[in-house]
């Protein structure tokens, strides 16, 4: 059986974590969440680590949470639902608090919680053809766990639009609103990444870690535990809503959810 998360580390101290659940668009279910958390905890305690590269195997970076997993957890008793939500949130917190810079390398696309992974990374490189969408609302869930990372990154102004509409955005747009830091032509991701890593390796390892610490200290929502707590509760509540079950069903059955209305014409507005 192939591993659903791969980690390699080179002699310079650059670790690469590959999310590898290809048949499932690299989405996260319970087992994958646990595995991811374990892997990050191991990395954090490793000596000589200088940076982590986060990437997806196959066609895209990551499509977020597995909708079946979300729905099933939402149907469980509140305490169980909440306990699991905390584990999901821990993935983002661990990325953000990993002692070294995390670089997300995005190809294909990042959706839902995949955008959360991107937002929680320190630096994001994307191929020009990637697309991004905060799709939770489309499936009846609430975009939530990503908020403590998304809001400082793109601001409430952009978050209000992209969360409330679930619209898809291009890499270029993602760059202009600050979700992505670098956009490169197709096929140029590795070259751009190598250039970035080489720059990072010139910098003092401790001063880089201390700078990351300082950035986290200054972020208005990361060290504000109530922000993370609120996002966890909203996540757990959101997946327990009736709309979440309907959204997941519509996804499985490849149909529009109930609330999606027939096309509205200009005149009607």
């Amino acid at each position: 059986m192939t591993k659903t998360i791969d980690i390699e580390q080179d002699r310079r101290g650059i670790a690469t974590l590959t999310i590898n659940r290809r048949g499932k668009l690299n989405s996260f279910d319970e087992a994958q969440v646990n595995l991811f958390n374990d892997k990050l905890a191991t990395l954090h305690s490793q000596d000589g680590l200088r940076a982590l590269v986060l990437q997806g195997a196959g066609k895209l970076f990551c499509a977020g949470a597995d909708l079946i997993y979300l729905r099933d957890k939402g149907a469980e008793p509140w305490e169980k639902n909440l306990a699991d939500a905390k584990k999901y949130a821990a993935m983002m917190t661990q990325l953000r608090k990993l002692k070294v810079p995390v670089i997300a390398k995005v190809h294909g696309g990042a959706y839902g919680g995949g955008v959360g992974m991107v937002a929680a990374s320190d630096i994001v490189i994307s191929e020009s053809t990637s697309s991004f969408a905060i799709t939770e609302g489309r499936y009846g869930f609430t975009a939530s766990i990503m908020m403590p990372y998304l809001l400082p990154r793109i601001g409430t102004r952009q978050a209000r639009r992209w969360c409330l509409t679930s619209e898809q955005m291009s890499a270029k747009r993602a760059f202009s609103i600050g979700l992505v830091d670098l956009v490169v032509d197709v096929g140029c991701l590795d070259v751009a990444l190598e250039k970035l890593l080489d720059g990072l390796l010139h910098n003092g390892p401790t001063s880089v870690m201390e700078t990351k610490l300082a950035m986290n200290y200054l972020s208005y929502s990361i060290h504000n535990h109530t922000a993370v707590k609120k996002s966890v509760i909203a996540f757990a509540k959101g997946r327990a809503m009736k709309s979440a079950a309907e959204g997941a069903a519509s996804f499985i059955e490849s149909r529009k959810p109930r609330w999606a209305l027939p096309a509205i014409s200009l005149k009607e507005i």
Partner: protein
Amino acid sequence: MAEQEVLLSIDARGIGTITINRPQVYNAYNADLLEALGQAIEAFVDDKHVRIIQIRSNGKLFQAGADINWLKANSSNSLEVNRSISELTTNTFKTLNECSKPLVVLVQGGCFGGGVGIVAAADIVISEEGVEFAITEVRWGLVAGPILTQLVSAIGLQNTRRFSLTAELFDANRALEIGLIHHVCPVGGLDKAVLPVFELLLRAGPNALNATKQLIFDATGTSLDDKTAHWIINQNASQRQSSEASEGLASFVERRKPSWYPRGKENDQNY
């Protein structure tokens, strides 16, 4: 007679000009320059004839950040001395950032390290095209703590995160996009480009302008609180004393790779 670190003048319109004047070291700052800069701001704020403050510099390059010889000399000093230097640096940037009168900064040539902090502390920044910027501290084994608060405010957490972790160069156009600067002008065009800005600021009701600047601080939470300042100063001081900082500064001066840069990279099969 020693050269003055900053030159001051006030014109008839009420524009107070601070000219940073250490062109021989690319206007890099030491303790004397920081103190002079802070005092100049305070004096102009207190002077009722001054309505607008501008900072510019002499020479080819706007500001190269901290004077590397000053940093090197202090890295072997006691924690107490380093703490006082970190405190002076943090407080000076706070004074600039929280100056109650409109602050305009004109940038030529290049702007690095703490120089980016001066720019981020301003209300309106005009830069010549082609100017390069970089938050260089980590390259020297240091932390850019004293300027981070105003950088986060000016260019957002995300851009600060990226540019302070990588120390990479970015040009005036990118600086404009991320909000670090507000106008780009042709090389040699700073004096011309600043005129309409002065014109606009002089048109505003003087009391209204004061109240508005305070309003911006209140609305954006730009001010640096004591607890954060304390944290930054401690972190900054201990990193100044580290062996990493000594090596970073030495390698920079000696124009060689620092010891932490991996050796034999070309033999690495993984990359």
